[in-house]
């Protein structure tokens, strides 16, 4: 067997092209290791070689992810890798997304194993954890040496074609998928063993950890409503008639925002709700019942509230996955913050 061929993906900064001002640079590549790739090559040892480094600017990638991925894949394929290693991107969001996209595309389209390094808090973890192998890193590049060491160690296994064991054993982030397995000891014996461990105060390991509790702490109340800017947000599925953005009536994957500037109330017939989880008759008969524009406009006129935001935000709650719901929240919150909104009237169904 010859030396294993590794291609390393970096962003413009770690590839030495430049900082934020160079983030618009397009995909490029060169033979050999660059930047953190030198350390990677050292960690891989004689069994593997970093045959090439491929990079892309963070903005370039995130502005045209589909075509950037295609360009990068063409570059990567040219070096005939046995494995692609991306990052580590630490807690950098745009870089993390590029790593996730490159790794999953390399696996799916080239049939080549890939892995990356991300801080567990990186938003790309949530997006790619099901498909990709992610080595947890520190938040900043201070943890570079540890991250590279781990990437090299797991990378060698993957490049050799070995199957990785359980995440807690191998040290990658769990995909979050559960699989049935055969074990030698019957469930009853495992249960009584676990109970005795608990009764004796010994440590024990549950076979099914509870989901991470994702409680959102309530924010402090608004101190002066008469000067506050409010926005309407709803999961009721109320959209302009015809549902122009085709928001799904259940298992929604998108949200919409629609202008209500200059309107005194929601007029029946001009709006409709396409929600798959409740009887929409009363909502369609008077959309103010689920989006109380009439009352908020009155409050705005009489000075109870300062101002109502010119757009409302809507999605459908029925069956929506928590992954999508979290993304909706991030995206809608960014808009609300940019618009200087102080508070939200949130109607849920």
């Amino acid at each position, binding site marked *: 067997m010859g030396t294993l061929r590794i291609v390393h993906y970096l962003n413009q900064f770690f590839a030495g092209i430049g900082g934020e001002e160079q983030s618009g640079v397009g995909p490029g590549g060169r033979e050999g290791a660059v930047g953190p790739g030198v350390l990677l090559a050292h960690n891989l040892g004689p069994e593997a070689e970093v045959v090439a480094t491929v990079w892309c600017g963070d903005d370039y990638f995130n502005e045209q992810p589909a075509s950037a991925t295609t360009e990068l894949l063409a570059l990567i394929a040219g070096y005939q890798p046995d494995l692609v290693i991306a990052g580590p991107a630490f807690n950098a969001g745009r870089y993390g997304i590029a790593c996730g996209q490159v790794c999953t595309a390399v696996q799916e389209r080239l049939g080549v194993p890939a892995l990356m390094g991300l801080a567990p808090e990186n938003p790309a973890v949530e997006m790619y954890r099901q498909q990709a192998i992610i080595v947890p890193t520190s938040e900043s590049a201070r943890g570079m040496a540890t991250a590279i060491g781990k990437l090299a160690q797991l990378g060698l296994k993957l490049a050799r074609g070995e199957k990785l064991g359980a*995440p807690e054993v191998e040290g990658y982030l769990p995909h*979050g998928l559960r699989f*049935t397995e055969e074990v030698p000891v019957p469930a*009853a014996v495992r249960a009584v063993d676990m109970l*005795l461990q608990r009764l004796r105060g010994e440590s024990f390991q*549950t076979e099914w950890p509870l*989901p991470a509790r994702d409680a959102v702490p309530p924010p402090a109340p608004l101190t002066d409503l008469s000067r506050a800017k409010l926005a309407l947000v709803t999961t009721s599925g109320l959209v302009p008639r015809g549902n122009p953005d085709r928001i799904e009536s259940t298992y929604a994957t998108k949200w919409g925002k629609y202008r209500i500037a200059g309107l005194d109330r929601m007029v029946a017939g001009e709006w409709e709700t396409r929600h798959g989880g409740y009887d929409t008759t009363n909502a369609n008969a008077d959309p103010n019942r689920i989006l109380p524009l009439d009352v908020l406009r009155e409050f705005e006129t009489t000075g109870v509230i300062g101002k109502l935001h010119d757009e409302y935000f809507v999605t459908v709650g029925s069956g929506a996955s928590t992954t999508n719901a979290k993304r909706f929240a991030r995206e809608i919150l960014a808009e609300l913050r940019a618009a200087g909104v102080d508070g939200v009237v949130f109607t849920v169904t």
Partner: protein
Amino acid sequence: MRLELANYPVHDIQLTDHMAYADGTLYVDATAVREHILARCDFDDVQLAVVRPGEETRVIHIVDAVEPRWKPSGSAFPGYLGPRTGAGTGRVHRLGGMAILTTSDAVAGEALYWREAIVDMAGLGARLTPFGGTVNLVVQLQPRREYQDERHPEAASLDDSMIGSPLLHRYGRSLREAQCELAITLARTTEGLRPVDVEVFELTPPTTPLPRVVYIFQIARLSVYGQRADITPPTIMHPNEILDSALVSVQANAHAAHRYVTYLNQNHGIVRELYARHGRDLNFAGVITYPATMNDLNSKDAVAETVVELARSMGANGAVLNYYGGGHPAVEFMLICQKAEQAGIKTVLVMPEAYGTPDDPGFVHYVQEAVAIVSTGRHTQSVQLPAMQRVIGGEHFFDLPDAPGGELKLPLRYLYAGCTSTGSGRLTARQY
């Protein structure tokens, strides 16, 4: 209460013209068995077949499985066939290592979406059901035509489609009586013979102080002593009653993978394990049963409250709880865990899993106190089963388009009793 299980292990079954047990082989008079069952006048046809581990055979349409038992001093199925008197005591003859698998075509007013149940005797499937490892006498029953008449006045479902039609109930009762009678007939062949071994079940008080442990058994789709258990309040049972066939499976409209099969109650994994540790590691303080069929939160809360009060009155330090599966039962199960932990009773939960992705972690309901869980496998997982040479029990699946003898890719939930939470199974689920 002292129960003796006298074991007569069965390594092979032969269909022949007389009834006998000799040297680990059970000889079954097939004609006599058929005629006896046909005499009930509920069946148009009865066929017997023997399936053995390793044979490339697939059994489908399974309704229940039972271990042959005979009790010289009373009924081997107390309350279901004959009086309850003496349940949990005396000597019982058992034909260990074999099962009667009863299959049947569906009847009018029977919900079919969960009815299919499969046992493979070879390949991966044989390891995913307890009956891939036993020698099985398959009893294939064809209901009389009236039972399949959709226009029959009793064919319409009762209020609750889960429970099915009165016709189904009448048929189901007859089927299970036939199955239990056959179980007794087969085990009676050991009359006057010496057992290979005798297990004694008696809760002798331990000589040293040990933690008191109760087993909290979530009852669903079972009869207890012949009475439907889903409407009975929480109660205390002696573990011997369960091992002595007090619980008979009475409903087949549930995922095959987590059904409380009669055989698994007779050979209850958790009850047996707590007995095995009794006096050594723990003090087995008894079993609490409760129904998992309440439909509103107040009733669930009341049931949970009563169960935990019973556990406290039994002086429990710890409890093993099992969950049947499905939606509603998850709520009272978790409430009991929470209330028990709050009362200072440490719990371990034995439960099958449904989904298992970050979008849906698979808990219908959970409480923060549920820190110690034993998984009996995720039944939504896709499994691939090889083609089999022979199919017994039916010609088509109830709700799968595939040919029953072919290679199959289906969710684990079709494999009979593969994830049942009574604890004898060897499956778990792990996160990747």
